[in-house]
Structures are given as C-alpha cells and as structure tokens.
C-alpha cells in the first residue's frame, strides 16, 4: 500500500470538471514527476491534494497513510505529513520567515519546540539551501524575488520534514542557479530524510537536477502515459503534441469525453 493513494479522482470547479479520474500512488522515498501541458489539471491536482476549498471532489478518494483524507481540512493534511510548495507563494507581511517556521513546526507538535533545537534545525536548512541567514528575519515572501520565494518554499519543506511533498511548478520563473539550488534541496531531502515528492512541471529542465523514478503525463484531466525517466527524454524530443496525437489515436474515447479544448 502506497503512502499516498489517489483513486479515480474527479474534481470540478463551479463551471468545469478539471480532473476526470486520476489514479496515482506515491510513497516515501519515491520521486515522481507529473508533466503536462498548460490547462491539463496539474495545479488543480496539487491544490486538491491539500484540500483547497475552491475545488470540489465529485468522485474518488485520497488516502494518506491508510487514512481517508478526501474531506480533511488542509491543516489536518499538513499535520499528517503532506506539503505543497506553491507555484505562486503568498506573501505574509509582518511575519518573519523564522517566526512563521516556528509557528508551523509548533502546529505539528504537542509541546513547542525548544529554541535551541529550532535554531539548529534552521541552521541546517539554511546551509542546505544556500540562503543568507538574514533571509529568515525578513517577512515571509514580502518583497521576495521569484527565486527567493521558491527558496523559501523549499526552506519550509526542509523544516517541516513532510513525508510527501507536492511541488507545483516550483521551477517556473527560476534562473539556472536558483533552479539548481531548489532541485538539489529536494534531492538532498529525499536522500537524507526519505522525502517522497511529486514534482509538477511543465518543462523538463528541473528533471536534469532531480531524477524521478516515475513519470506521469497528465492531459485533459487524466494521466495518459506513465513510465520511467525515459518518458522525459521522449517528451523532450517529441513535445506534448506528438504524445497527444498518439494518445488521441489510441485512446479516442477518453479524449472525446473532454470539453473540446484539446
């Protein structure tokens, strides 16, 4: 049994059905890549897994460590060990990175973390992610550059030590140095802490730095292709259109169920 099991997940907003039956298994220690063109439902899946109130699950279940969390509140999922690195991290003015981290860590614990222990952990994470110490006294994401925001996401991930992290287009808008730092951070958390990750991305770039064991391709709300890292290489050569055509030819019925945007 996988740590995170997604079964026949259908998700809609008020107007559209966006996910039309997604099945996915992710366990600790596994790195998965979820790729797909714009509008395929990648971010919807990410947000739904953490319980975003805008998305309504019309069918299917999400099970985490054996518990059905389909209806759980976002903070309950977080406490259980899920994490979402946002595509567009939200700025929280007036709250320093360090204070926010302490609050988030304490939210998962019965007893507040000791100051010394917190400092040690923070120091470790800072080194891992190659950020300036002054960074942690700035207000969270407030006035951060795109790269700083993504580093802050990975810093939070390192400190909160989730079992499974979902990284929603964490690579978008990053220069090559920031991308490398972020990717190496994920890889090290995987290697050191046994992190399981679902890396959601539009491009192949980040996958040069983090090697996924499993690759899934999402189109029109369904996972249409699954495989190993060779899929990334194929995608790089052929692009989404080729796969779409092939997929359209072999799985015409599935496409026909779409809203025609394909």
């Amino acid at each position: 049994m996988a740590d995170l099991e997604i079964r026949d997940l259908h998700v809609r907003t008020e107007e559209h059905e966006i996910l039309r039956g997604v099945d996915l298994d992710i366990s600790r220690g596994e790195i998965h890549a979820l790729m797909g063109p714009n509008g395929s439902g990648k971010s919807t899946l990410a947000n739904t897994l953490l319980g975003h109130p805008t998305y309504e699950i019309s069918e299917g279940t999400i099970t985490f460590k054996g518990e059905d969390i389909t209806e759980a509140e976002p903070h309950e999922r977080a406490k259980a060990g899920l994490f979402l690195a946002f595509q567009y991290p939200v700025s929280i003015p007036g709250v320093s990175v360090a204070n926010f981290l302490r609050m988030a860590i304490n939210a998962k614990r019965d007893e507040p973390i000791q100051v010394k222990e917190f400092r040690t952990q923070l120091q470790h994470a800072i080194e891992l992610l190659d950020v300036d110490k002054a960074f942690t006294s700035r207000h969270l994401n407030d006035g951060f550059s795109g790269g700083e925001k993504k580093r802050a996401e990975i810093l939070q991930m390192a400190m909160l030590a989730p079992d499974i992290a979902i990284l929603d287009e964490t690579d978008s808008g990053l220069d090559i140095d920031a991308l490398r730092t972020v990717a190496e951070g994920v890889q090290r958390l995987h290697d050191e802490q046994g992190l399981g990750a679902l890396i959601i991305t539009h491009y192949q770039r980040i996958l040069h730095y983090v090697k996924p064991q499993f690759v899934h391709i999402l189109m029109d709300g369904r996972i249409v292709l699954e495989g190993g890292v060779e899929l990334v290489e194929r995608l790089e050569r052929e692009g989404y259109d080729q796969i779409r055509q092939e997929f359209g030819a072999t799985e015409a019925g599935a496409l026909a169920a779409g809203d025609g945007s394909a």
Partner: protein
Amino acid sequence: MPERDGASIPDGATPSAAVNGSSPVQAKPGRHREATLYHALAGAGAGDTLAGTGGRSLAELRAAALSAYEALDLPIWRRSGFWTTSLQNLDLDSLAAPAASDPCEVPAVVGRTLPDRARAGRIVQSAGAVVHLELDPELRERGVILCSLEDAFREHAELVEPWFSKRLTIDRNKLEAANAAFWTAGAFLHVPAGVVVEEPFEIVYAIDAPGVAQYGRTLVLGGATSEFRVHEYDLAEDFDGQALHAGAFELYLQDGARCRLSQVQDWGSGEVFDLSTRFVGVGRDAYCHWLPALLGGHLVRQHLELAVSEPGGDMAFRGLFFTEEDEHLDAFVVDLHETGPSGGDLHWRGAATGESRASLEGLIQIDPGAQQTHTYLQIHTMMLSPKARVDAIPSVLVSADDVSASHGGTVGELDETAIFYMQTRGLDRPAAVRVIVEGFFEPLIAELSDEPLEELVRAKVAEKLAAAREDIEAYATSR
C-alpha cells in the same frame, strides 16, 4: 473642586466670545466631510490667556466653557455616506459629578494592564482624582515635574499658563466645553531643556465603575533638546452601564526636543463614551513620533492633530485601531504644517469585527508659506466580518507650491489564498487569520519600539481575535 452645576463658577462669557478667532466647527447634517470644514485648532487659552497677559484666567476660561456647555446640546456629527456619530444616547445627567465619585484606590484594571517595567514616573487618575503619583527622584532633582495639572497651576503657574489650552478650544461641542469647565486633577509633565529620559512617563486615565464622567486634562511640555517617552493608557473595567471620558490632551515640543508618544486605549466592554481632542505641537527642529492604539470603546470620537509649527519640525504619526462587537469609532486625524521646511509621515491601520463601525478621516493641511514640506498619508483597513464597516477618507489641502503631499491606502478583507497557504503549513484557520491580522498590525506595533508596550498591544489584538473567532468563521463560510 468645580461642580457640574457650576455653583462655584461665575457665569461668564457667551460661547461665541470664547472662540478666540476661529469659528466653531460643526458639520451640517449630511453634507460635509470633517476636512472641508476644518479650522486649525486656534486655542482658547494661552495667547488669549491667563492672568498677567490681559487674557482670561483659568476661572474665566472655566466660566466661558460652562456657558458654552449650558448652551449646547449633545453633539451629532453627520456626513454624506450614511455616517453619523451621535452622543445623544449618552445620559449625561445620570453620570455623577467627578467630586461625588472620586475614588482613592488604583483600579484593578491598571495593575492588570500596565506592564511591570522600569519607568520614569507614573500618574494615575481614576474618575476625577489622582490615585497614584510617582516620579524617579533623580529626575525630580534634574527639574522634571510630574503632578496633577491642578497642582501645577498652584505650584508652577509660570510654566503652565503660557501653554495651557494654547491650541485647544473649549466650545466646539458640549463635551469639549464640559471638559474645559469641569476638569479635575489632570496630568502635567515637564521635561526641562536638555534632559534626556530613557524610560517612559506613564499617564493613566482609568474608569473603574459605571456612572462616572471623567474629564481628563493633560499638558506635556518638552523643553529644548529634551528627549523622552510618554505612554498614555485609557482603561476601564468591564462593567454594565454608561461612563464618559471627555479628554483634552496637549503636548508642546520646543526647539530640538524629541518625543515618542504612545497611547493605549481600551475602554473594555462597558458602555464607555470617549470624546477627546489631542494636540501635539512640534517646534523648531523638534520631532515627535506619535502612535495611538485605539483598541475599543462603546463610542469613541477622537480629534488627533499633529502640527509642525516651526521650521525644521518633523514627525511620524502612526495609529492603529481595532473595533469589535457594536463599537463605534470616529477618528479625525490632522497633519498640519504651519511652516516649512517640515516633514510628515502618517501611517494608520485599522481592522473591524462584529458589527462595529470605524471611520478614519485623515487630513493633510499645508498652510500658505509652509514651503518645502513633504508629507505622506497612508491608511490601510481590513474588515473581518460581513457586518463590520471601516471607512478611510483621506484629504489633502495644500496652500503652498513647493511641497509634496500625497496619500494612499488599501481596503482589505481576509485573503483566502493566504489562509490556505498557511493551512498547508499546518496552521488551522483561526491561527492563520491571527497571523494575517497580527501581520497586518505588526509594522506599526514594531514601531512602538518598546518591548513591554509591543507585547501589550499584541496581546490585546490577539484577545480581540479570539473573541471574534465565530464571527470570522462565519465570514469565511458566507463567501
């Protein structure tokens, strides 16, 4: 001690004679904003003033105020946009004259609220009497004076008379007149030229029971190049029933003086009406950082005016407010530049829960000739419940051409994306809301730059948020 029925006060001048050059400011129903009617506070005391200068004595000022008091009805302020601040539900006749209710003990709320910390001095007025007075003996040696204003008139007349009511009027409305006619005890602080004091002077007005009419009167003088902090606390016990605080506060900074003035106002859950005027005058090259934290009261109307009166004066005028339940707050904030070069920087933040209503009208006024003045007003507000309402109304009146003056601000509701973001980090919804609201106020709280005071204001904000929890939840599900 004067009684409200005025038996001991000679019947004096008519209200109009007491105005001293300015016309009374009274909004016409439904038409005007405060700013468009605004006349700088011209004062009814010094200049006009007191014995020896051909002006009026304290007794004459009281008498003039009494006439105004008797001639005026309880005030109502209206402006278009369905905003009314009415004192007409105040049952003034049922409130005790100060003398009748003078306590002699420090109300428990004072001990509960004020931080236990090093201080330069403390004066506590409960109802109409001073119940506690202390001053660091070393500072007394150096000429610092902290005492009741009544005592100051007796013992330091030469210091008090040139400044008393220099800029405060006495007859713009019935309760201002009541203050000027009936004030008792009061507070007087004088920091002589060159004296630098690190720890704060604490001035406390407390109401410990319903039925009290408290007429607070504060005068603070900062001598040339003095540096000091003033922390004012306006506090009441939680009680059932009405009480009134009508306050008049003035602070004058002479050449090069620097003052940090903070005010924590929390009138508790009783039906406390607070109608106060506060004036801060900044002299040549002087600086004032003023930060009122208006944290509740049944009905609060404040006229807060900071005037740069001499070249080189500079100021930072901050403020925060947080109303809850059915509270009503009406603040008129004035940034007045009477001469240049001068600087100004106003930054206010307010939030409202429950069915409370808050209005902040901010005015920048640059007088003719106040060249090379640069000032900025920003107002940020946040509504935390569907029935709460916050109005922010900035105005700029400029009569000089070599200046910069502008305003900006934001009106916000809770950001659901930010709440979700924090929830994904394990914070539950109330905790996430708390982070947002505390973060919203934090830039100002940090500017108190005094840890015990910061902690107090943070705690009060957290208290209010906890009390409003259901309300905030309801707001989330209603959208």
